[in-house]
């Protein structure tokens, strides 16, 4: 059956602006940038993790009509596309400080979770991204429940 996830996508409103953010601020690298004629195939990946690409896809004709593309753009800019991509890091607080200094917009500051420390952020278009520093051993989540 299936082996792994090798590519997933994020809708972006402008691919150049997307590069500025995903490469220029988040520190990803371009894995492909090709003019296929009918579309610009633009993918990025985490340096050192070549097996997983993110397609930065611009909604529009001919894949979808302009009215539908406008609806997609509405949803993205309202933050209604839900959770798009989750990254891992070795040091969440340090990464947060670095990205904050670069002007990245955070929705949630570093927070201790049962599974580690994580932050929430948005790309320039409204997509919700997360970065987590995974705990070596997930803490029991139902301590209160067990006590009772």
């Amino acid at each position: 059956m299936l082996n792994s996830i090798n590519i997933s996508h994020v809708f972006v409103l402008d691919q150049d602006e997307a590069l500025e953010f995903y490469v220029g601020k988040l520190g990803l690298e371009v894995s492909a940038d090709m003019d296929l004629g009918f579309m610009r195939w633009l993918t990025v990946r985490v340096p050192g993790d070549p097996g997983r690409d993110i397609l930065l896809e611009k909604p529009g004709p001919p894949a979808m009509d302009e009215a539908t593309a406008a609806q997609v753009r509405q949803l993205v800019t309202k933050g209604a596309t839900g959770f798009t991509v989750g990254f891992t890091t070795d040091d969440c607080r340090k990464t947060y400080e670095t990205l904050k200094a670069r002007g990245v917009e955070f929705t949630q500051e570093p927070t201790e979770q049962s599974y580690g420390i994580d932050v929430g952020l948005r790309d320039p278009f409204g997509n919700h991204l997360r970065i987590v520093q995974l705990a070596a051993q997930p803490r029991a989540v139902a301590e209160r429940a067990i006590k009772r």
Partner: protein
Amino acid sequence: MSRAVEEFNRRLLRARDAMDRTYAQPLDVPALARIAHVSEAHFSRSFRATFGETPHRYLQRRRVERAMFLLRETDRSVTEICFDVGFTSLGTFSRTYNEIVGQTPTAYRDRTEALPAPTCFTMAWTRPSSFGEAAARNGK
């Protein structure tokens, strides 16, 4: 036209994110209106048109969702939690909580266990709704 709406959405989302981050502080409409680049008079109306509820209600649900989280995951007292999430009176907290959740904070704590899900999802998905489906689920 469409581009202007998208930019407006994005600015309102930025203001909503600010509310989510600073939920324990008083609702500061002038500051939020500045983030959204709209007049104070327009902010609430625009927010409601975009997200389906007033900023005040959004913040109430955010605070109640955080209170539910603290009731589930910690041993802090109801009074402490009331102030933790930004309410300034226990009476208002209890009334608002009861109205939105349909049970008292103490009853909720007694009947609920911790959820093994990231905060961002509990924030979005366990937030008590203004949109009617909870009542529908309860057969009201």
